[in-house]
């Protein structure tokens, strides 16, 4: 552990009644430039707060340069770790220089004011971040990029050995974002400052960091050099969407982007899907299929069902039966005609009872017509018919060539393959 700057040892942490970090262990070496990535709410900010002892771990320990962060005095802790939060605001009209001075406050006890060398450090960090010319301007009147650099100067004035930034650059424009990044890279190189950058921008993280740590649901999913972490498979799972990872052969940088052109790429074979749903199980299906460029139809649903509302809102063609009643022949016939138009039929994880058992016949017809049929797994748990008729029917459907789907993400991938 000699040259580990920051070590998390089986840390469990969170807020009242809610554990966010779950048994988290990792290590950051001194002088590394780390980027911490992951979807919203995965615990990145909580990790930062725990590292800086703002949050106490429920279990496990956090070490800064080999010392337990909990046993450290606040002043000595601030000399090791500096944190730039997402946004810093001061309601009072401090000038930029006054803000930066706060970085030296803790080091200079209450009796002694700031000394000559403190002012030298303050001025040096202001020069480093290129804000000295702003020293007499009011902090809150500076632009976002200038404010961020002033805060960075303030944290640098602490002279910490690790600096952690919490999405602080996310809202800056590209020019200011790269200016802050250049400053970080420079102190990382010249002063051997360890940098941990929490970021949403995967491409940017890949470009600047030595190592990425990918978090999801309070755990570390993957860590390593950018090209090992930014893999479509892992990212797709963590962010629950399809992502494209491209490597630039000339510069060696990695570029990650979402997929926008789904709507156009599906102009071919599959363009209509019929979904059997109910009770809110269809909403996500409608949304995802519609986003992928499918024409979506659904039915039979009962009126006032939450899926019926969603279908109406999304403009999905729907066959409706009266609210709270069993599906009758008339509605079934209409749905059968509608499903005949579709190339794919998908059955959601809707509970099946005597009232909607008839919907399964749509699947039988589709299979007979040689169409693809996908059934959500776990029919036994949601079969409420007498004598388990639904489960029996599904068994037969599967035997006849219907397929099981488990996660929506996988279903989409499978459909794309064909």
């Amino acid at each position, binding site marked *: 552990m000699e040259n580990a700057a920051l070590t998390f040892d089986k840390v469990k942490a969170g807020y009242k009644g809610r554990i966010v970090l779950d048994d988290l262990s990792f290590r950051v070496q001194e002088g590394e430039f780390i980027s911490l990535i992951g979807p919203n709410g995965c615990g990145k900010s909580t990790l930062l707060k725990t590292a800086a002892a703002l949050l106490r771990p429920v279990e496990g320990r956090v070490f800064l340069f080999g010392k337990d962060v909990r046993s450290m005095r606040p002043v000595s802790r601030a000399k090791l*770790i500096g944190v730039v*939060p997402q946004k810093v605001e*001061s309601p009072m*009209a*401090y000038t930029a220089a006054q*803000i930066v001075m706060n970085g030296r406050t803790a080091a200079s006890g*209450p009796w002694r004011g700031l000394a000559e060398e403190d*002012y030298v450090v303050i001025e040096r960090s202001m020069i480093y971040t290129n804000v000295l010319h702003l*020293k007499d301007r009011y902090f*809150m009147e500076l632009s976002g990029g200038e404010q961020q650099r002033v805060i960075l100067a303030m944290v640098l004035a602490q002279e910490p050995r690790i600096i952690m930034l919490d999405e602080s650059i996310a809202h800056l424009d590209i020019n200011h974002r790269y200016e802050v990044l250049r400053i970080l890279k420079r102190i990382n190189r010249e002063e051997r400052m360890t940098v941990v950058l929490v970021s949403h921008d995967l491409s940017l993280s890949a470009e600047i960091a030595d190592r990425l740590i990918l978090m999801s649901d309070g755990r570390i999913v993957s860590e390593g050099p950018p090209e090992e972490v930014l893999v479509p498979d892992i990212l797709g799972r963590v962010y629950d969407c399809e992502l494209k990872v491209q490597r630039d052969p000339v510069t060696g940088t990695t570029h990650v982007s979402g997929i926008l052109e789904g709507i156009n790429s599906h102009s071919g074979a599959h363009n209509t899907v019929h979904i059997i749903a109910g009770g809110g199980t269809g909403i996500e299906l409608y949304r995802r299929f519609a986003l992928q460029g499918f024409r979506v139809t659904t039915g039979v649903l009962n009126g006032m069902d939450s899926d019926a509302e969603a279908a109406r809102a999304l403009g999905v063609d729907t066959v409706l039966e009266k609210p709270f009643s069993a599906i009758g022949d008339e509605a079934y016939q209409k749905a059968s005609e509608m499903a005949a138009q579709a190339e794919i039929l998908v059955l959601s994880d809707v509970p099946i009872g005597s009232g909607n058992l008839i919907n399964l016949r749509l699947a039988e017809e589709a299979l007979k017509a040689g169409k693809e049929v996908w059934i959500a797994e776990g029919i036994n748990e949601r079969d409420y018919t007498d004598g388990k008729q639904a489960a029996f029917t599904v068994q037969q459907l599967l035997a006849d060539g219907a397929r099981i789907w488990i996660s929506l993400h996988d279903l989409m991938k499978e459909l794309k393959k064909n």
Partner: protein
Amino acid sequence: MKKYQDTTVRSTAMRRLSTISGTRIALFLVAVPLLLSLSLLLGPTGTMLPDLDSPVGKAIMILRLNRLVMGLLVGAALSVSGVVFQAILRNPLAEPYVLGVSGGAGLGATMAILFGAVSAIPLSLPVMAFMSAVATLFLVYGIASRGSGGVPSVYSLILSGVIISAICSSLIMFLVSMASVEGLHNVIWWMLGNLQPAPANQRFVSSLFIVSGIAGAWLLASRLNSLTLGREMAHYQGINADAVIVAGLLCATLTAATAVSIAGMIGFVGLIVPHVTRAMFGPDHRWLVPLAAVGGGTFLAVCDAFARTVLAPIEIPVGVVTALAGGPFFLLILQRKMKSAWIG
């Protein structure tokens, strides 16, 4: 990145980053003794220096000096208390009244007067006022933190403070309505706010409380600066934010409660003096605390001189003068200079 290549680190750094206008300080330091001597010339016996050779003139002068000192102490106490509350709560509306501190102190003092403790036990008035103010603060803090899981938010603090404050004043009203005629006179006289010199031992203890409270606030000054960036940021900078908040609240409560115990409910000073001082000299608390203390003390002493002179021999409650004189002045400052005090 070229901009700073000609800027080298020089030993003059300290002066180049100085944050306060020297001219304004100089003006302030000239104005304060002038105003204080002016207030010594004013009194119900005439707007002249009394004949110091005669025993009557001497007595008048001593009385005026005593009131001057009382005014300085009480004004400084209320102002510094306001400065500290505004910094900790990061809110321009904060002052001793808002957190229920003055109300609590007032309730304690009323009880001490009405139940006869004041005449029976020496020093019971300031001690009782301080204890009930601290109890009120704990109550407010406790209620506010219960709702927000450990650390109270500013809004819940202010809200519960305002409510507790209202409860305290209703209790005072109730006690007053039940009081005997003599007790009623004492309480009303005290409540209106006046700077009649208190007994010597009470004066001594009160000034000790106030001076130590102000000194404590001054020691916390640089930490208060950090705290205005928020509790979280202050923590990251190696400041024990919770300890600073508790210490600051105690200092502010001590000074405000003592001021209430010796001078009654004098409103406005704790709110406007911090604002005016901040507008003139900027928000750096290392300067703000002493300047607000001197400024607030002078303000109250001068107001008191007017209060006892304008309608002599009738004495107007000094709280009336602080509000009537301070209000328009405050609004003027608010219009012109607010930007250099608060932003947002």
